[in-house]
């Protein structure tokens, strides 16, 4: 009797480890197949010559071509300009949000989410109509003052659209790190005789800098990843559109395209690495005394703050207004406002070509579901198992943050084109599942982070005390762990859903046939012709509604910490 009991206690953990090992192996296999290997293939193509030998010649060629050099400089420049102008709006707003209490503060919260619900490439079209050469503002200026401003021409148009879309990332990150500064650190400086601007410069600024830098770098990554905006504005001298053009016009074997992809990845990886460094620094000043008392402001100062918020809010609402008007217009060109209104655009996208909306729902919900499953499994393995190789798993699950959509798509085309994938009835790149896979992989880091954070808060002792009180593993998981992590897991899934809804960088290259395209692709296709723009805008409105619904739910689930979803 005692003998078999001993055998049982020894076998039990062994069996569990075996299960964990099996899950770990399959996860690693999936991630290698769909993340690491495609990216490495891209890297290899760019580093090898026809004979298969290692060479740097493609990068030498890259920097020899003036067009690529210009695209390289422009990409850096656009990232820096977006961060710069974005910070001009974001930092004062973040300061107000973290330090002051005033009537009308709700506007600030609106401001932090409003720009994010409209995909930048949709916003690009709308801003063309409002600020473009023959848009609303310039037409009015011409009519009354006989001047016009080229707001939307060339790089400045791209920077304008992206600034208005991405500044909330900087704002949220900065606000969090400001709010995390222990108030006694500033009070101590006041106690020493320091106040006002000096206090800000010597204490507040250095302490909030890591969070601000992290937000800026994450914004930078998103800006250089953004393919849709330059395409919509027809400005192509940037790296992402160049890569896209090389592969789609010259062909999948064009080596220059691969070299550009690798340059993009290097940029993103460096930025991500630096962002993580800063984020770990950002937590060093966060020992809290307790309640942070927000300073009430009134009168002239409040008016000043509200005025600033109003201006930024007005600017960031322009795309929404434009797209809304366009979606109801029969025709809108060379006029201040649409000349006639119609519901046809909605009939078109809801009844004549409903597949865009249907596809989006199918793909993104599938992708979000897969992300939640994989994210939860990965988080569990990272936090609760002792298996070797966890760091590797973590690394490849984080990698997609630094892989621009174009690059992943090029990798997929390279790897999965031309051979029949088992079960797909043809090459994977001809099947709509390729989009689901791309979305799943691109958004996996969000669910991993969300599940990880949720599970991390369930301290092991909570589970142990349940087991100590007699609950077995299964019961412990169902009664203690699961309820505690549900919120985080659901929020992670919602973020994956929301961000997949408006994915265009990879979509645009991977859609096998127009009928298989999701909303973002539909918008792109419609926007190519002047007559289709109304329908494209209607799709844009649908996308905004989907994203808003998802964002709203995320806030409900995450509560006040919704902003943390945008800090990776």
């Amino acid at each position, binding site marked *: 009797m005692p003998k078999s009991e001993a055998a049982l206690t020894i076998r039990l953990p062994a069996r569990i480890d075996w299960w964990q090992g099996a899950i770990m192996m399959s996860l690693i296999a999936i991630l290698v197949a769909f993340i690491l290997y495609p990216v490495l293939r891209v890297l290899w193509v760019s580093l090898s010559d026809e004979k298969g030998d290692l060479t740097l010649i493609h990068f030498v060629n890259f920097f020899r071509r003036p067009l690529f050099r210009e695209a390289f400089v422009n990409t850096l420049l656009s990232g820096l300009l977006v961060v710069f102008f974005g910070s001009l709006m974001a930092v004062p707003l973040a300061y107000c949000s973290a330090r002051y209490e005033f009537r009308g503060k709700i506007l600030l919260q609106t401001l932090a989410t409003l720009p994010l619900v409209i995909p930048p490439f949709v916003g690009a079209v709308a801003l063309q109509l409002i600020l473009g050469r023959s848009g609303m503002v310039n037409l009015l200026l011409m009519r009354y003052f006989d001047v016009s401003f080229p707001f939307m021409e060339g790089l400045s148009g791209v920077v304008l659209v992206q600034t208005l879309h991405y500044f909330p990332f900087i704002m949220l990150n900065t606000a969090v790190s400001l709010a995390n500064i222990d108030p006694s650190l500033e009070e101590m*400086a*006041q106690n020493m005789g320091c106040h006002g601007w000096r206090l800000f410069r010597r204490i507040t600024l250095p302490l909030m800098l890591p969070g601000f830098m992290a937000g800026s770098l994450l914004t930078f990554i998103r800006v250089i990843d953004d393919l849709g905006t330059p395409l919509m504005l027809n400005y192509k001298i940037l790296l992402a559109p160049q890569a896209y053009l090389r592969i789609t016009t010259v062909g999948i074997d064009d080596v220059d395209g691969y070299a550009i992809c690798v340059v993009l990845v290097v940029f993103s990886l460096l930025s991500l690495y630096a962002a993580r460094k800063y984020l770990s620094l950002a937590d*060093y000043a966060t020992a809290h005394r307790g309640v942070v008392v927000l300073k009430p402001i009134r009168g002239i100062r409040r008016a000043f703050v509200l005025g600033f918020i109003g201006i930024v809010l007005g600017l960031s609402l322009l795309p929404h207004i434009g797209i809304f008007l366009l979606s109801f217009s029969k025709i809108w060109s060379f006029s201040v406002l649409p000349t006639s209104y119609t519901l046809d655009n909605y009939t078109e996208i809801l009844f004549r070509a409903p597949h865009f909306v249907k596809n989006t729902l199918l793909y993104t919900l599938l992708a979000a579901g897969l992300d939640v499953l994989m994210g939860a499994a990965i988080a569990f393995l990272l936090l609760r198992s002792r298996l070797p190789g966890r760091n590797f798993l973590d690394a490849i699950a984080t990698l997609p943050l630094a892989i621009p959509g174009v690059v992943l798509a090029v990798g997929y085309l390279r790897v999965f084109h031309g051979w029949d994938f088992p079960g797909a009835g043809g090459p994977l790149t001809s099947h709509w599942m390729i989009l689901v896979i791309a979305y799943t992989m691109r958004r996996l880091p969000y669910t991993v982070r969300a599940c990880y954070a949720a599970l991390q808060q369930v301290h092991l002792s909570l589970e142990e005390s349940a087991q100590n009180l007699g609950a077995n593993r299964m019961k412990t998981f169902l009664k203690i762990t699961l309820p505690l992590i549900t919120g985080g897991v659901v929020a992670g899934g919602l973020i994956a859903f929301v961000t997949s809804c408006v994915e265009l960088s990879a979509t645009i290259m991977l859609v096998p046939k127009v009928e298989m395209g999701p909303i973002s692709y539909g918008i792109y296709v419609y926007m190519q012709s002047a007559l289709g723009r109304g329908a494209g805008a209607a799709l844009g409105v649908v996308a905004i509604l989907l994203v808003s619904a998802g964002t709203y739910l995320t806030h409900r689930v995450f509560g006040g910490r919704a902003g943390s979803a945008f800090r990776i």
Partner: protein
Amino acid sequence: MMKAAQVRLENVGKRYGKQWVLRQVHLQIEQGEFYTFLGPSGCGKTTLLRTIAGFIAPDEGTVYLDGTPVNHVPPWRRDVGMVFQNYALWPHMSVYENVAFGLRERKVTRAEIDRRVMQALEQVDLKGTEGRRPSQLSGGQQQRVALARTLVIQPRVLLLDEPLSNLDAKLRAEMRLELLKLQREVGITTIYVTHDQEEALALSTRIAVMESGRIVQEGSPREIYEEPGDRFVAEFVGKSNLFLGTITRAADALIEVRTDNGLQIRAAFSVGSARAQQGETVLLNVRPEAVELKPPDAGTSEMNQLSGRVTALAYQGSSVEYEIEVRGRALKAHIVHPKGTPLFQPGDEVHLVFAPQNVGLLHHGL
């Protein structure tokens, strides 16, 4: 010698919403004093300290520094140095930069800064750490950096908010002595906040005991301990055996009290304490260390003798803490047993014996 200041609070009150967290606080702290706010958690000590530092504006009353009202003087012009409970060392600056910060604000010359920072670090025994970041220091070292940073600007008043509470017991005892020496050395007016009564008794020239936003008693450590004004102070500062009863006989220097559970206790008046009348209800206080335990058969000359039974004991090294049941009440006794002598055991019948001089008479808080 520093320019020590006098601090006066007149009728200071502060409320959050409808709730008053400070009420009618009057006090006067003289130059060079070591004055302590003592009270349980949440009684308003930190709030009071922050009011003096200028971080909180009182809703009523006035704060005076050296006779000048300072209600409208912002924190950075008050010249009172504060040491925060969590030290609030700036993580992005080295130890040297932390300590030099206040001097830079005061536009002191570079050479002078260097001299004074080094002197301050030496004073707190931290020479050689000036290049380190606060995170590379131990808790006790951080605490001393915080102290040096404040002392180096030679403020008029030093405010300390539970500066020792984050340290372990041994270090706390050491730092307590260090702090005392340092304060007496520089002669700075010091206001100290703690909820640790031992700390308060050991350090202070005077103590203000606080309860839910009010000062309930003010006095020297001996006065607070030996003549607590009411039940709250008696129980908060040190341990107490309290007896509620009626005076049955009042003589010149002695009263006799019959307690509500039928005990007979005699108490002597200390000089100057208020007279009590026959028939009055009073609260008596006997400190556990004033009690002696005797076997029931031993004779005694003391006038107070209660018989009871030991219910529990806790050996504490220097003394033994007994709990004794006397007429349905649990009383405490702290007894020092000479080495090798046997202890009383639970169930033992004992006599509690104490002199009338050791019985305190509480006038309030019945």
